[in-house]
């Protein structure tokens, strides 16, 4: 029975890049443990000889020509959605601290 600790929740939040509040840490510690305890029932299932399913309709590699196509959307339109743009680049905060 998985019971997440406060540190487990902080680690998950850090991996998922989610800054969460003190209240949320306590709440998720409880709620995520309950959800994980529920889904753990899959571990008891007998699946001898079975392979995992990743694609349900049986499609395999779907190929296309590697050519430039016009999708009717300009890079400028796409860039317009970003909160911080400079010289047609998305500007972010410094990466190395």
């Amino acid at each position, binding site marked *: 029975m998985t019971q997440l600790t406060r540190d487990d929740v902080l680690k998950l939040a850090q991996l*998922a*890049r989610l800054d969460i509040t003190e209240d949320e840490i306590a709440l998720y510690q409880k709620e995520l443990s309950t*959800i994980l305890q529920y*889904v753990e*029932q*899959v571990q008891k299932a007998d699946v001898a000889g079975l392979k995992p399913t*990743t694609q349900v309709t049986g499609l395999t590699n*779907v190929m296309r020509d590697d050519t430039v196509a016009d999708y009717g959307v300009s890079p400028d339109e796409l860039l317009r959605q970003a909160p911080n743009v400079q010289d047609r680049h998305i500007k*972010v905060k410094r990466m190395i601290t």
Partner: protein
Amino acid sequence: MSRWLPIADLAAKVQTGQLKAVDLVERALKTIEDKKEYDAIISIISERSRERAAAIDAAAAKGEDVGRLAGVPFIAKDNYLVFGAETTAASNMLRGFTAPYQSTVVEKLEAEGAICVAKANLDAFAHGGSTENSDFFVTKHPMDKTRVPGGSSGGSAAAVMLDMAPFALGTDTGGSIRQPASFVGAVAYKPTYGLMSRSGVVAMASSTDVMGPITRTVEDAALVVDVMAGRDPLDSTTIERNPKGYANASSSLKGKTFGLITEWMGEGVDPAVKNKIEEAAKKLQAAGAKVTRISLPSLPLALAVYYIIVPAELSSNLARHDGQRYPFASEEGRDLNGSYGKSRGIGFGKEAKRRIMIGTYVLSSGYYDAYYRKAQTVRTKLINEFNEAFAKVDFLIGPTAPTTAFKIGENANDPLKMYLADVMTVAASLAGIPAVVVPTGLASDGLPVGLQIMGVQRSDRELLGVAQAAEEVLV
């Protein structure tokens, strides 16, 4: 306001000029305004709708072919990229996002003359079964404002039953089209996985996400499916359409075999729901169908499988919402990593964060095999059981949800209890099989119950045909 005519009739009359597309659009916009207290709608697309309607009327007057859905207004769930309004997915994270392109299925509907007049409310990022997880507001049930309309496509389902438009689009990852339709008494169609392009729709879980319509009748749903279906170079998981199409497929119930799923008629199912489904099974039999009981022993595991696979996939899909590419960003954070954490911590609602962390957990090193890989393998077992069942019967039937529409707030503080609302819909999603919800009328508690009918993969035409025949005897 009275009901809309059948979609095919509306389009035919717009073509001949007996009805004007501009009037249909005005009627939709007025109904949306008159019924705004239900909070079904996030945004209204008035200017573009009126322009398109006028152009369609002008083309029709010149005798041009204006399409099979000419002038027919529709409402898209707000996770479809549509011109003329923001696409928010009912999340603070996507507030201010204006689609630079449209989803493939909306393009196809527009090419046949349909007009998107509004965007409907949902649980943020389609995470939920009640619209209570919308970051904006809760949609009210059309018959009882103290109840939820289901979800996540609750706004779309309510809009159809409030006659805001003849059809609405929903998305279904684990029941998000079907469960709200059952709650409000609408028809819903969840196609075979891959039948409709996912391009231009905000992704939730890529291995189960499908697009589909919510309507008042199966006939209307089939026509919309016929327009939406087919391969799309922009979505390499799409499959070929049936050359016969999906409209006008009505068939007879005589001689058809249905398996009533025993796992869904036992404990934990509201007796009011069970009675309606038993009654529906008898009506199908009376119309000449053969109904047997059938067991799929792994079905009780489906919800656990779903709540491992889907959080895993959505935690990956939602990684793109990082405060750098889409409008929402927190100014806080002293470096890039800090900006990610702050933007995501503030921008995502509680349910999105919950699911992202569950997904992160089941995919993390050391837990991957015990959770994600194991769930994918149990998924295979479930698919095998569906295949065995479809070797014995033509279609499977059962309830759509274990209850009728619940009260607003009733499940809000218990995420696991909320997840249980999906217990009968997730299995078809995991197996990629098509499922349709047909109204059966009102249960003893006065609320609607929908019969869920499932077919084998790629049997969409046959399923819509039998659903139309079932609709005649059920309602």
